[in-house]
């Protein structure tokens, strides 16, 4: 009897827990901690700012945040990473943040159109697409045209997200159409099937392929030069710490930061 009840109760509890859990996603935030690093010019900086940045900047911004804080004791740079379009929408709706770094001019335009920017956005890096293939490139893929082979399993980003827009541009530039087996909702999930060996290729940013080095190889293709994504950054009007916000923007467009970006696979703007 007791056992029966236990089964019934735990079944109910599990059902309830699952209904609550459902599926979650996005919205990671982190704050960098101080470690010794390089320095920048600027004096009397203190306090905290929050930077909203495109998900593809996660690795580099965390690193640059640590370097900046080491050079300016007493400052804290907090980051919130996500899809550029989601972040732009948060700013327009009045999120209390200081700096916005977007993965595309279009998403930056959402913010400038709403008049939330303080100053003009500055481009700080470019990113372009590569063909991500399993290690060793077993199918010997060398060009975008190779991806049109119907026997291949190719994953693209959905046309609504920036990496998908870039893929469409590259296809148009090459005058061909790739039929994907799946349109991934973001660049990381486009890479996963290739890492698992379940897809033969995916069009992803060079920086993402580089971050997954060892699990995928990157094949460069000429048409990607016509589908380049430019990353703009701007301080925001709503900032309560304009000095620190401006200092961060100046740091990101500095040669020192560019060295970190190019090491991660980005290109100079």
């Amino acid at each position, binding site marked *: 009897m007791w*056992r*029966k009840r236990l*089964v*019934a109760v735990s*079944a109910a509890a*599990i*059902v309830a*827990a*699952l209904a609550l859990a*459902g*599926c979650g*996603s996005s919205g990671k935030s982190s704050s960098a901690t101080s470690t010794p690093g390089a320095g920048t010019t600027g004096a009397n900086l203190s306090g905290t700012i929050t930077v909203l940045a495109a998900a593809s900047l996660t690795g580099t911004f965390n690193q640059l945040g640590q370097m900046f804080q080491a050079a300016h004791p007493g400052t804290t740079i907090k980051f919130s990473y996500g*899809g550029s*379009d*989601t972040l732009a*929408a948060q700013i327009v709706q009045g999120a209390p943040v200081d700096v916005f770094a977007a993965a595309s001019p279009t998403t930056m335009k959402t913010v400038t159109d709403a008049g939330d920017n303080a100053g003009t956005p500055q481009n700080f890096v470019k990113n372009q697409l590569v063909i991500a293939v399993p290690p060793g490139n077993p199918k010997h893929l060398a060009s975008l045209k190779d991806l049109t082979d119907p026997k291949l*399993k190719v*994953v693209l980003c*959905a046309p*609504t*997200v920036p990496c998908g827009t870039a893929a469409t541009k590259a296809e148009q530039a090459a005058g061909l159409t790739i039929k*994907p*087996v*799946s*349109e*991934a*909702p973001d660049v990381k*999930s486009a890479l*996963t*099937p290739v890492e*698992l*060996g*379940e897809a033969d290729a995916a069009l992803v940013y060079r920086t993402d392929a580089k971050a997954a080095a060892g699990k995928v190889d990157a094949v460069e293709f000429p048409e990607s030069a016509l589908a380049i994504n430019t990353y703009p950054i701007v301080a925001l009007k709503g900032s309560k710490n304009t000095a620190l916000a401006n200092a961060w923007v100046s740091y990101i467009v500095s040669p020192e930061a560019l060295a970190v970006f190019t090491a991660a696979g980005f290109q100079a703007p």
Partner: protein
Amino acid sequence: MTQPSQQQYRRPPAILLLPAVIGTAYLFFPLVGLVVRSPWGTLWQRLTEPGALTALWLSLITATITTAVCLILGVPVAFVLARTRFFGQRFVRALVTLPLVLPPVVGGVALFTAFGRTGVIGVWLDRWFGIELPFTTTAVVMSQTFVALPFLVIAVEGALRSADTRFEEAAATLGASRWTAFRRITLPLVGPGVAAGSVLCWARALGEFGATITFAGNLPGTTQTMPIAVYITLQNDPNGAILLSLILVAVSILVLVSLRGRWIGTG
């Protein structure tokens, strides 16, 4: 099925009433929020977009096939778990509930490792039969079955454990085979449990996202179910995504309510 006539409807104890109201309200208000926020003016435009209806149709079809598969596989699993004793039974029971705990996205990766073209079974399917399962509509049903099957098994096992076994014993003494006793006695006895389990299973399959987008991917018309269409829309049109999810909620309520009277009994 109708309610037993001797059941009485009474006023619940006051101490149960308050949490009952809070619990209901907690589930209710997020839905109200969606309804309020939804851009109703664009409803017709949304519904006539080919993508939305295709995704809705694919969701309804795959969730229904999934429920059928879960019934065929899940009722026997529940029967074996409830009515037999064997070595490793506890292990099997834990195994059956495992997908409930596993984050669905990991479930999708797990399906790759089993049925993908490099998977432990998939590699043979590919080599012997030329079957590649990932990124197909079959993969959608497989993903949904993986996450929905435990719901059916748990519901039916619970029903079997609380059912009176004396009827089965009586049938056996009267010469019925075990299969006949199961078909004619056991199954009708646990009918409401099976029906409730099927509804849970169907609803879970309909809302499935994580395992599906991993193992089946997202391709409109082939593997893009409604929850995936909602997620993709959410990327640049949050209000549109709300409306799409409300359409999904409305259709599922419609289906469940219309079935309720027929299969599950009024309640």
